[in-house]
């Protein structure tokens, strides 16, 4: 995904023309907008841990890994995060396995999250095409754990503490760049 905005030579002009600081807002306008802000937040609240995940993603930005895109299917099970959030809400761990698929160019990585002993999470992954891949598990404040995919592109992390995490995938032969998943909540 190209995230680079086009340079806009009119920036300053827009700034000057678009807003008159002595403009039309009165106290009533201000009050209406303040009230509206509360409604906007209430209608569609920012997900609880989005800030924390973004902060962790920033710390991983130095790895120079291209971010993969997660593919969410419109299945009746509204997606792994929705389910995880719902589970958090009533403070019970999700019992069944969740699957998320990530893509970047030709590489697809599918991971399945399932409960492991001690409230931990087991990550089973499968990458295609099945080149020899090194898979790093990054978590805040914890050393990176690295594993390698087998000849079928399978890999696993058997017991991972719950919390924020991102996988970084590299080809063992050093070809191509590294890619990372968005920071997810295990």
């Amino acid at each position, binding site marked *: 995904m190209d995230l680079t905005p086009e*340079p806009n030579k009119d920036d300053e002009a827009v700034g000057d023309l678009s807003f008159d600081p002595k*403009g039309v807002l009165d106290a009533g306008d201000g009050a209406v*907008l303040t009230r509206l802000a509360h409604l906007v937040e209430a*209608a*569609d609240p920012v997900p609880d841990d989005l800030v924390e995940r973004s902060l962790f*993603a920033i710390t*991983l930005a130095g790895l120079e890994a291209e971010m993969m895109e997660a593919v969410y299917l419109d299945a009746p099970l509204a997606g792994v995060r929705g389910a995880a959030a719902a589970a958090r809400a009533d403070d019970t761990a999700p019992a069944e396995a969740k699957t998320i698929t990530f893509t970047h160019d030709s590489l697809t990585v599918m991971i399945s999250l399932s409960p492991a002993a001690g409230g931990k999470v087991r990550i089973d992954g499968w990458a295609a095409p099945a080149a020899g891949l090194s898979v790093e598990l990054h978590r805040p404040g914890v050393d990176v754990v690295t594993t390698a995919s087998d000849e079928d592109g399978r890999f696993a992390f058997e017991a991972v503490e719950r919390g924020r995490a991102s996988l970084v995938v590299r080809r063992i032969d050093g070809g191509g760049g590294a890619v990372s998943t*968005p920071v997810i909540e295990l």
Partner: protein
Amino acid sequence: MTGSREALPDVDGSGLTLGDRAAIALTEYRNGNHQALGELVREATPLLWHTVRAQGVEQDTAEDVVQSTWVALVRHADTIAEPKAVLKWLLVTAKRAAWEAVRKHRDDEKRRTELPDDSPEHPTSLPAKDPLPDAQVLRDERDRILWTSLQKLPGRCQELLRLVSLADRPDYRYISAAIGMPMGSIGSTRGRCLAKLRTILDEQGDFSWT
């Protein structure tokens, strides 16, 4: 969550807006001090979230778009020519990524519509555009009136007002520019949207909004 309360309408006593703090955060980050950026992430994530959601992006995907917008900022930290424009940069970046996500989602939907048991309209898979605040929030009659009045405005006005409500007043220009309101008429467009809303509100009765 953002500085909306203290920013409106005319209390810019602190002098610094979100846009200013964004500029400072980027400059500090370039100098190796990451703390201000962390604060900016906390402060501006709601604005990015609602910008992305306004494009019709579903929850899960919107979370990733916001995340990658912040990552993009860090990656481009040294190449953003105008630290002053970093808030607008963030908004534009988030919005473009949101469009891209919506486009992909539609393509995927199209492919899936080939399945015979899918309805042609595919109503269940459309992104929820206008989530409602829950009943608890709308207990206040003025909130109910405000919310229903907002729905009567054209879509772009709704989007604009929702987003500027989350921002500091002098930053409206960045939001307007990021939303792509016509150049030169942006201030008046916002004025028109707000004026329309006030007119509709006035028709609902004689409430004090202050």
